[in-house]
């Protein structure tokens, strides 16, 4: 799947701007960004729900807008299953079997049994966790190669969340599929995603493998005799400060910063484990208000 120069304006405002990336099957990709950064708009454009103002989304070289049949390879699972609340389990099955020719009914019932999901007369009667699981089971049974999930674990309890994450990892391991997840749960993405796309102000700020990202930055704790020198403040991202104790993110591959810190003879200069959340704050933090 290739996203080429996709831009989207809504009410005259750029929500997405010149987005470019491609997705190979067999991976889990996390799309992260602050509220209103354009994550859901990106997923909706990638499934043809929204028309891009500019650019294209292609699968195997075919535009999903010009040849919508190719969307048999893509399925979008929104953060709410409003569309099916009046359908019974069997009716949804009938609907999807008629839409996706590769729909695997046996596999569907296998997963339903495994996660102890009962067949119901109205799926609106499922609990929130059950709805999330059911949507995923349906999505994985369609045989689509690209599965786009918008906040799949939002509001789920720990047990259901573990089940959801388990099914995601198993699917990618067992089948040649790619899962694209938009989520605020960076801890979960860190646990399962291979690649992270950071969206900032409607643009791709960065697209890296998680390990690659971690090799680019270093999280350190610093204690100075007095406060941190001003020139050093410009070179690092301060995550936290308590008195003279600083937790900062710095560029791992820039010897100049390392040298500057050593020159100040800090009382403590210790590397800490780097989390995805730290990189998120460092790269996307910006102004503090939530848009």
């Amino acid at each position: 799947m290739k996203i080429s120069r996709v831009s989207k304006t809504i009410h005259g405002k750029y929500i997405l701007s010149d987005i470019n990336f491609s997705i190979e099957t067999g991976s889990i990709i996390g799309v992260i960004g602050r509220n209103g950064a354009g994550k859901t708009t990106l997923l909706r454009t990638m499934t043809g729900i929204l028309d891009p103002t500019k650019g294209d989304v292609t699968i195997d070289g075919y535009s999903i807008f010009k040849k919508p049949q190719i969307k048999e390879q893509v399925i979008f699972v929104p953060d709410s299953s409003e569309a099916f609340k009046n359908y019974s389990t069997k009716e949804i099955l009938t609907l999807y079997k008629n839409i996706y020719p590769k729909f695997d009914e046996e596999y569907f019932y296998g997963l339903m049994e495994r996660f102890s999901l009962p067949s119901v007369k109205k799926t609106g009667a499922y609990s929130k966790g059950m709805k999330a699981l059911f949507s995923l089971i349906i999505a994985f049974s369609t045989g689509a190669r690209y599965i786009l999930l918008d906040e799949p674990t939002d509001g789920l309890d720990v047990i259901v969340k573990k089940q959801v994450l388990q099914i995601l990892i198993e699917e990618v391991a067992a089948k040649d599929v790619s899962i694209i997840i938009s989520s605020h749960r960076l801890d979960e993405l860190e646990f399962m995603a291979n690649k992270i796309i950071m969206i900032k102000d409607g643009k791709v700020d960065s697209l890296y493998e998680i390990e690659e990202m971690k090799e680019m930055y270093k999280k350190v704790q610093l204690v100075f005799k007095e406060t941190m020198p001003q020139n050093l403040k410009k070179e690092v991202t301060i995550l936290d400060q308590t008195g003279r104790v600083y937790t900062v993110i710095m560029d791992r591959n820039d010897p100049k910063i390392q040298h500057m810190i050593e020159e100040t003879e800090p009382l403590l200069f210790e590397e800490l484990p780097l989390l995805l959340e730290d990189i998120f704050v460092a790269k996307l933090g910006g102004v503090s208000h939530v848009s």
Partner: protein
Amino acid sequence: MFHKALWYQNYKQTRMIIWIILTLFIIHMPFQSVLSLETWKEREEQANQAEGYVYEVQKWDVLQIFSQGTLPVFLSFSIIALACLLIGLERNTRRNDFTFSLPFSRKDLFLAKWLYGISAIFFFHVINFFTAFFIIYQSDYSTALYLVSWIEIFWGPLLGFIMFFTFALLIGTFTGEMISQVGLTFLLGFLPQGVFALIQSFTEVHFRYIFSLPDWINYLTPFHYVFNQSGEIQSVVLPLIFTGLFLWLSTYLYEKNKIEHNGEFLIFKVLNPVFLTGITIGISLAGGMIVSALAPWSADALRVIAYWIGFTTFLLFALLIGRRIVTMNIQFYGKP
């Protein structure tokens, strides 16, 4: 457009209104024909008792069963509801996201909705028509069927309903949600006659001049084809032409839909000034017409003053409504 899944989805979405439409058709034609036969029989018996009086079924009696009366009014409301459930409600909920994410072209999505609706109308109409026709044909009053033409009782209403359904779907392709679709279907459904009435009221109050209603205004009014079957060839040809035109336009607009504007008044923002201006002028003129009607018929100056008081008052209402319309966003989100 023949994708089984889309037909299934459309039926699930509109199951209740489809059964309501079927019930209305049954009451309108077969049930009413049975009741009418009894009424005619009773009237004939009463006439036989009165000397020198012979009862004859009139053309109007037959038209009531097939194409006139109050039931076509309810049917047209139900047809608007069907069109709104197929397009408008999808926009108010997140169903439109699901529909547009499917591996079908938007043209196919729209044509499946259209074909589904007209198939229901066609089969319900044909089955109920012939049932009612047969009930009268095998009765003592079979000659009553010669009083009416096939255009008046079969082709006119059938093509009128199909055209009106297509018209209601067309409105759904550029309105952003269900209430706007219902509102504009009524407004534009009566537009030519409505505009004529407003202009006539204006000239009548100010210049004491009354136009006669030209036929072409009726022919341009979509509701005309649902309520009025004249038996002229225009009742067949014009609905066919309008159906084709509306279908072409609505398919084009549906393909160009920007569903990020779902929930708002109109999908295509370029149309906002046109509609807001039209609605504002229309409401203001209606205000003038209503308030001037309260003044004594003979008091010319008072009627003009009343007209402009009504016009100005309703203009203010229209401006307030217009402001709300521009900022409206109606989306229903169920519990997640």
